[in-house]
Every structure is written in C-alpha cells, then in structure tokens.
C-alpha cells in the first residue's frame, strides 16, 4: 500500500472536513491526543467503508455521526478509570452544605460527569444532544442522523429531559 494511492477526491474531503471533525471530537472528549486518534479513525471509516452511493451523501453529517459514536465509545471505555474520580466528586457533593455544592464541582469535573452521562444514555439521544449543542443546525443534524428536520424539536426536548433526569440522579443536591 502506498500513500499516494489515496484518491485526490478523498484527500480534498479530508482536508476540508478535518478541522471541524477534529474540533468536534476535541470538545467531546476533551483531550488532544484522544481527539486526534478518534478523528483519524473517523476518516479511516470513511476510507474503508464509504456510505452507499444510492443517494447523494452529506459527508460532513456522516463524519459527525461516526465521530460522535466513536467519541461516545471512547468515553464509555473510560468508565472504569473514572468511576473512582466520579464517586469522589459525588461524595464531596452529598457531604456538602446544600447552598454551595456547585462550587465544589470544578468545571472540568462537571464536564467529565456530563460526558459520562452522555455515554450512558440511549446513543440516538446522546448523538442528538452532542450534534445540536456543538452548534449544528437542524437540517445538518437531520441529514446526519437520517431524521426529518421537523421531528428534531420533540426528540431534542425528550433527550434534554432525559439528560436532566440523569444529571439530577448523579447530583441529587445540585439545583440544575
């Protein structure tokens, strides 16, 4: 296998979409090395298993969907590593006076908890939350996930409600 066998059109797609896919994963997993690894894997999937040609492809949406999946899988695999840290955080919260728990949670710890909740939710719901809250428009999300744009409002509301429920369960003391 020689590097130059990669087609020019694939290279152009790679160069065009890399910054967004990489940035998206960086925000999702919060670590440069991991984001890079996952972004490379995302493009590897595109290279090896390109989506079918039956319909015109929204490459950006496809890449974001695959990236969200890979990111969620990665977060899930941190679970064991992070359980201890999360338990420590939760203990600090439950033992704290009710008026100041939020202060105990540093931003990074909170992000970690949010990531973990996302990784435990129904994958479809977490994908939706991730894509929407990373700034994608309904039309883009709908194409990426194969949904109709008009269904997104209800689905988002349901996903956000479920997210909030889980967040409260993990943090019973905090006023969400």
């Amino acid at each position: 296998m020689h590097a130059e066998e990669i087609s020019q059109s694939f290279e152009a797609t790679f160069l065009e979409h890399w910054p967004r896919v990489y940035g998206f994963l960086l925000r999702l997993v919060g670590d440069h090395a991991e984001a890079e690894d996952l972004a490379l894997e995302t493009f590897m999937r595109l290279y090896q298993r390109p989506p079918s040609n039956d319909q015109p492809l929204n490459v950006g949406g496809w890449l974001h969907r695959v990236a969200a999946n890979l990111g969620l899988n990665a977060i899930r695999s941190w679970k064991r590593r992070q359980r201890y840290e999360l338990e420590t955080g939760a203990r600090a919260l439950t033992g704290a006076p009710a008026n100041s728990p939020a202060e105990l949670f540093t931003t990074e710890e909170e992000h970690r908890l949010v990531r973990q909740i996302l990784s435990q939710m129904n994958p479809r719901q977490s994908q939706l939350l991730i894509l929407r809250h990373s700034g994608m428009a309904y039309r883009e999300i709908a194409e990426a996930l194969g949904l109709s744009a008009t269904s997104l409002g209800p689905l988002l509301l349901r996903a956000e409600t479920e997210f909030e429920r889980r967040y409260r369960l993990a943090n019973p003391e905090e006023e969400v």
Partner: protein
Amino acid sequence: MKHLTDGQLRAYLDGELDEEQKEHLTGCPVCQANLPAIRGATLRAGQKLNFLSIQPEGGKSKELAPYPALARFKSRLIDKKETTMFKKILGSRALWIGVAAVIVLVVAFSVSPVRSFAGQFLGLFRVQQVSVIPIDTTGISQLNGDSALGKQIGQLLSSSVKITQKPGQPQSAASAEEASQLAGFTVRLPGAQAVAPQLTVQGSTAFSFVVDRARAQALLDESGHKDLVLPASLNGATIDVNIPASVAAAYGNCPKPDTNGEGPNLKMNGSAGRRYADCVILAQIPSPTVNTPPDVNLEQLAEIGLQFTGMTPEQAHAFSQNVDWTSSLVIPIPKNAATYQQVNVDGVTGTLIQRPVDDAPEYALIWVKNGVIYAISGLGSDSAKAIDMAKAMP
C-alpha cells in the same frame, strides 16, 4: 391552527419554526404560557452541554492542522494494511499449527541444546513431537484484537514484521496427487472413508521480525506483568519464520473455505456445531522452521512466556526442564476446559485433546510423523472418528 406542541416550542427556541407557526405563537396566550417551562428545561441542559460548542483553552496552539493530519492518516493506513495482512496469516486455520509454533518460539530456543551448537550461526527449530501445556486463559483473554492491549500488540507486530512471502489464495485440489503437487510434499489421506474429502491447499508463508525490546517490555508492563523483565540481549534480534504449504482435507458437511484466504474454519458456537456435526478436517503441514540468533538468551524468555500464561516462576522453570524445546510443538490448552491424553496412531504417539463443553464439544488429534504435522479436528464428542481415521492412514 392547533396549539404548538412542546416539541415545536423547543424548535422555536432554536429558531427552527416556520413562519406560520411563529405567527401563531406570537398571538396565542396558551402557547406563550407553555414556553417558559420549555425554555427553562432547554437552558438547564444547555448550560451543562455548552462546553461542546466552545474551543478549549489553548486549543488552537495544540491543534493538528489538516496537512500534517493527512500525513498521519496515510501512515496509519499503511500500518493498518500490514496489520491486516499479518492477521490474515495468523487467522488462517490451515496455518494454525505453524502459528502455535511461533507462539512458543520464545520457549523453543530457551534451553541449552540450542546454545550448545557452538559453531552454528543460527538456532533452528523443527517439530518432531507434540507437547501440551495447560494454561490459565484468564490472563490471555485481554489480548484480543479489540482491547487496547490487543491493538498495541497488533501495531507492534505490524511495525516489526516483514512478510517475505505472502500465503496467497487457497486453491482446491481434485485428488491427493494434485494436492501433493501444489503443496510440494506427499499428501497422505486415510483409506476406506465413506466420502471423498474436499481438498484445499494453502500456499507457504514466510516472515521475519525484529524484536523491539522496549516496546515489548512496555506491553508486558501494561498487561500487569511488571515483575517480568525481558532480557536486554533480546533487543534487535531477528527471527525468521518459514511456514510451508499446508493441505486441509474436509470430510462431511463442512463450512466452505473463506474467500479471504482462510481455510475451512469450524466456528465452535452451538448452531454451527449442530450444522457441521459430521464435519471432520484432516490438516497436514511439514514442520515450520524458525531461525533465531543463538546469542539471544531465550531461556529467560521461555520462562517469562510460561509465567505470562499463569504459571509461578517455579512451575515455569520445572516445565521448561521437561520439554525438548528444540523439537517440540507446544500447544497451549485452556486449563479446566480441555483434557488431553496420549494415544498410539500412525505408528507414533499422538495427543488427543478434547473440550467437553456442553453445547459445543470438540476434539483434535495431533501427531508428527516424518517431519509432517497431522491434525484431525471435529465438533462433537465422538473423538473415536479421529482415531479411526488416523489408524487408516496409509
């Protein structure tokens, strides 16, 4: 117009309502009254999730730009191809005997007989008999290709293995004579069988690898074996492996050889077990050879390998004393999940291994004669079939 649903109100907050709906909302007190609750829920979730849209601090400076990223992508692509090729060789059923030889390679050269060839440049391993080693597989189960450790091992192999001869596609043969011609050795088939076998010939393979001690040690450390230290002499050693062509003879209703280069492969799960219950496969392959520099102190390595499979240092030492490593094919079998016994077949002593699992029992009979390794394997518990077949060898 109907009142807006909660979902539509949610879409409104993202500016995703159509004009008609927006107009309705402006003039409808009922919908207006519902809006604050939805807005509250959205804001609360949004507060927690908004970091997904914000570039982390110092992000830009560490960010990998598109062109360097593309270069990394290309090199990963090459790595992946080579790993796949290696896996293909490793995954080939017809070659599993040779692979087992490679697995025990570390063990094979450890002991004094090899090092006593003072004037010889290379140690050489050739199979003359079979030994079985019961191992605790719990420590090894983490080595599958999907685990982080498995991936690292794959990468280590792909970056240090050079395939000098690719195995090619398996070819079918109409008769033992044709198979012999294709494989380059005399293929023996048992007489008096009710059906003619499907013969598949898998071409020969050769590869060599250069040991990167630091990386191999890092993997051992990571697998929780920090106590096992690889000898410094191992670094840079080149090991050459030659696996000759092999022939598989499939009797009964057997799975077809895969087109991706694998020979007939019995998947051992329950339904396949019933489907291929009468399938028996006789595989034969001249002994693989493995060359390694004699100055590498592999005795330590052998015992490290044995300890990795769950033995204590004392057990590993005792075991390694009892095997002639220069000529034995050592087959690891799962402790408590398989039994083995010696049987007389084809004029030599063979080893019958049985896995008495309830839903999918299986057996394999292995022996070595005149430098050729023979293995008969099948599903079910009727291992007498294998013995009868071996006794009918010409």
